């Protein structure tokens, strides 16, 4: 009755959230005196299977096949379904990415199981059952999800758990398993891909986010925001007002209809702090607000505030941090 984790990869690169989830799986398994198995699906991904052992897996089920090269629901779900039926894990965990959520949902429907989505915390009760804490009502309520069937499945939000240390000396077993569907049986075809801006940090995974809102006044207003972000190695975020105005693409949007993020540091520049924006960033560890209006609601959730013109403060902060961080 071990703990299984799906290790997500894209084009042969593992998604770091999978290692965060694997680290947590290791903890849960140790608490129960059981083992951790990682599931790696893809093509040419043996190296990821070895890495999974370093991050805490005892066993890795590796399905390496051309039909699994890009993520597609049908062939992926078919392999997972077979693995679950064969091994009956007690718990199965997934990173809460677009692919993780979709795959978890499909597998749960196929097998009549439950999933707790976007969990912020996981623990075991006295009987060793999984208790998954997740936000509902867009972060305004928390609940502990309990499960009626096994495996108990949860998708985990990015940065809910720390990145584990890899230990290259750990040993484990890699077990090759076959794909279940043949190409002719797979209805969906991936016909193209356009990479997002390279070298950009995505808001979902960032330790630090510098966000701009309507207060930046135009697309060029994001330039000082980007410069501050560059010094901090941060992602650039945005309010919906800035996205809707067409100043910055949607993938940067933080909030209820954008990304829900929990970085160590969130710097909101020219953002008023509407409820829908707060829903996406309120759980950040430290929040800084830079806004001309001392009455802006963003100050009610901020730890530090500067009531000033962002076009003065942001460049000044960039200069100071360049010196302090010597970058």
């Amino acid at each position, binding site marked *: 009755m071990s703990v299984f984790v799906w290790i997500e990869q894209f084009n042969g690169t593992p998604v770091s959230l999978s290692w965060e989830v694997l680290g947590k799986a290791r903890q849960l398994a140790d608490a129960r005196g059981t083992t951790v198995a990682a599931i790696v699906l893809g093509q040419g991904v043996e190296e990821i299977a070895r890495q999974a052992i370093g991050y805490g897996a005892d066993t890795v089920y590796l399905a390496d096949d051309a039909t699994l090269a890009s993520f597609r629901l049908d062939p992926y779900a078919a392999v997972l379904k077979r693995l679950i039926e064969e091994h009956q894990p007690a718990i199965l965990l997934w990173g809460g990415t*677009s692919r993780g959520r979709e795959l978890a949902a499909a597998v749960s429907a196929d097998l009549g199981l439950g999933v707790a989505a976007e969990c912020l915390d996981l623990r075991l009760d006295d009987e060793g059952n999984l208790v998954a804490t997740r936000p509902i009502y867009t972060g305004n309520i928390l*609940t502990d999800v309990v499960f009626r069937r096994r495996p108990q499945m949860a998708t985990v939000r990015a940065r809910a758990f720390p990145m584990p240390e890899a230990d290259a000396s750990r040993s484990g077993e890699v077990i090759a398993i076959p794909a279940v569907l043949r190409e002719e049986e797979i209805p969906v075809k991936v016909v193209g891909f356009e990479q997002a801006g390279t070298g950009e940090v995505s808001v979902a995974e960032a330790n630090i986010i510098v966000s701009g809102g309507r207060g930046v006044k135009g697309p060029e207003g994001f330039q000082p925001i980007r410069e501050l972000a560059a010094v901090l190695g941060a992602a650039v975020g945005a309010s919906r007002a800035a996205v809707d105005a067409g100043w910055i693409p949607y993938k940067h949007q933080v909030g209820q209809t954008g990304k829900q993020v929990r970085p160590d540091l969130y710097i909101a520049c020219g953002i008023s702090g509407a409820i829908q924006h707060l829903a996406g960033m309120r759980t950040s560890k430290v929040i800084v607000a830079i806004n001309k209006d001392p009455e802006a609601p963003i100050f009610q959730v901020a730890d530090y505030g500067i009531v000033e013109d962002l076009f003065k403060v942001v460049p000044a902060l960039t200069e100071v941090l360049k010196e302090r961080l010597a970058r």
Partner: protein
Amino acid sequence: MHAIVCLKQVPDTAELPKVEPADVMQGTLKVTRVVNPWDEYAIEEALRLKEAHGGKVTALTLGPAEATEALRAAVAMGSDEAVLLSDPAFGDGDAWTIGYTLAQAIRQIGQYDLVLCGKETVDGNSGLTAATTARYLSIPLLTCVIKIREVDFTAHTITVERLVEEGLEVVSAPLPAVVAVIKGINEPRYPSFRGIRTAARMAIPVWGMGDIAGLEADKASEAAAAVRWTNIRKPPARAAQCEIIEADTVEEQARILADRLLAAKVI
């Protein structure tokens, strides 16, 4: 072309902070209800397909009697038909009982090309229902759709752009399929005056447990839910006591802020 839009009635997002744990437990929220924001994109996309290809749009929801208001909103925007699935026996379902019930109702509605859903709901926030519905219908699922590039209702094919973490993925699939849309796909229209009048007059059918052919009660009822919410509570309040940093110059303010952030070990 026949597109079925699955939509949910949810609390107005501006009122979500007013939701109390006790109200969630009793299912008695004292809030204004609206169509789930993501589902408005799904309705709009269905209407655009109808305008381009002819055909009709059916709005479908599972919920309490009041949820007809959400269907009326979809009709006011331009949907042709609407069906409410409502029965005390459905109870508080989850993504599995709801996906199962929606799928059975969709089968009963009859011939269709597309099922459109939103990315997630603002109350359950699970983002699972489109997937469970697709699996119970045994048809392809396309999530995170930001653009329908091509759709051919004669050849029964669709090609979409999906916005995933790493970029834009272009995917094609046979129809019928479930398509879950995200913000950015379109700008939902306002209801027209005529639409509002049509919606107000429309008799919207209500299907209960016994009205859906082949529906197995033990899969659709609350007791079948695969998960249960316990310990429903408010998140701990942010202990934020905002320190407003004041100084004679912005450079000085920036220096103080940098000191604070270094001390807090967040940079």
